[in-house]
């Protein structure tokens, strides 16, 4: 009870302080393109990067290094989940609960699974053109695998293949960065031609990176799910 009230008071203080600071001091909704870096992104983004989706232009090109870092974060986090959950001495994947899913679910998943994979792939392949990108596409792919897990009790992924896939796509991303350094002297430099914005094959290295990210994120999230499902009760 005391703890709860302390918590409430603390939260209240934080809330009031943050709320009023933001409400009074942060110019919500104003045009602030002149104050910071955003004007460059908005007015030159498409020309600079060749990506029609500005968010992608920033995330993958202007600040591609952050994205490399974020991919690593996800990679490490997935490994970490494995670390917390794994247990020694017992081979994984033996103790899943054997409750069969219903016929509808099983049939539906069989039809939907490839479509979901395709949708995920679509999202990250078109990351530089339409909203979405590697992270979103990867999450959709992971959802597809989740579906598979739910419908099929015997289903489990081939760890080695997944690991290899993850590795290859992760290395692709890092290699693209290193190649940029070798070719132009800048890490992660866009060394491919920008093409004409709006086409599928445009925006230089962005599609390569986004495909890599999509596959990697999909594999990692699936890995997390796999870890969660197969842990001992």
């Amino acid at each position: 009870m005391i703890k709860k009230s302390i918590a409430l008071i603390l939260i209240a203080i934080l809330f009031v302080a943050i709320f009023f600071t933001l409400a009074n001091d942060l110019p919500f909704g104003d045009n602030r393109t002149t104050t910071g870096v955003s004007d460059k992104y908005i007015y030159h983004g498409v020309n600079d990067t060749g990506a029609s989706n500005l968010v992608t232009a920033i995330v993958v090109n202007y600040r591609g290094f952050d994205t490399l870092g974020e991919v690593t974060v996800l990679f490490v986090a997935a490994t970490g989940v494995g670390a917390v959950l794994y247990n020694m001495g017992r081979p994984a994947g033996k103790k899943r609960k054997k409750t069969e899913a219903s016929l509808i679910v099983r049939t539906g998943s069989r039809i939907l699974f490839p479509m979901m994979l395709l949708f995920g792939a679509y999202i990250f392949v078109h990351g530089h053109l339409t909203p979405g990108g590697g992270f979103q596409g990867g999450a959709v792919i992971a959802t597809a695998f989740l579906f598979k897990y739910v419908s099929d009790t015997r289903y489990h992924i081939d760890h080695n293949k997944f690991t290899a896939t993850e590795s290859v796509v992760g290395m692709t991303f890092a290699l693209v960065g290193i190649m940029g350094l070798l070719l132009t002297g800048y890490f992660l430099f866009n060394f491919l031609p920008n093409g004409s914005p709006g086409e599928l094959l445009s925006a230089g290295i962005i599609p390569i990176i986004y495909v890599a990210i999509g596959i990697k994120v999909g594999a990692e999230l699936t890995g997390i799910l796999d870890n969660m499902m197969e842990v001992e009760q």
Partner: protein
Amino acid sequence: MILTIAVAILILMMMVFAVYSVETKDLLYAVVGTMAVSLIVSILFYVLQAPDVAMAEAAIGAGISTAVFVIAIKKTERYEHD
């Protein structure tokens, strides 16, 4: 105008769900509550013209993380006790 009202209603709903998921003792309900929060946030992002973020929120917040929570609850206990 209508948009403003809709957004206000969404925000209110979001707050209700958020408080509910903190307060309920049934963790499964709490997870559903957070999923609802994520969905509404995702809609709000869309309204604020951030489709990329909206997609990410929908796929990860409402999809994957809910699944992770549900699996975790299934492996442990459904009810919270002090």
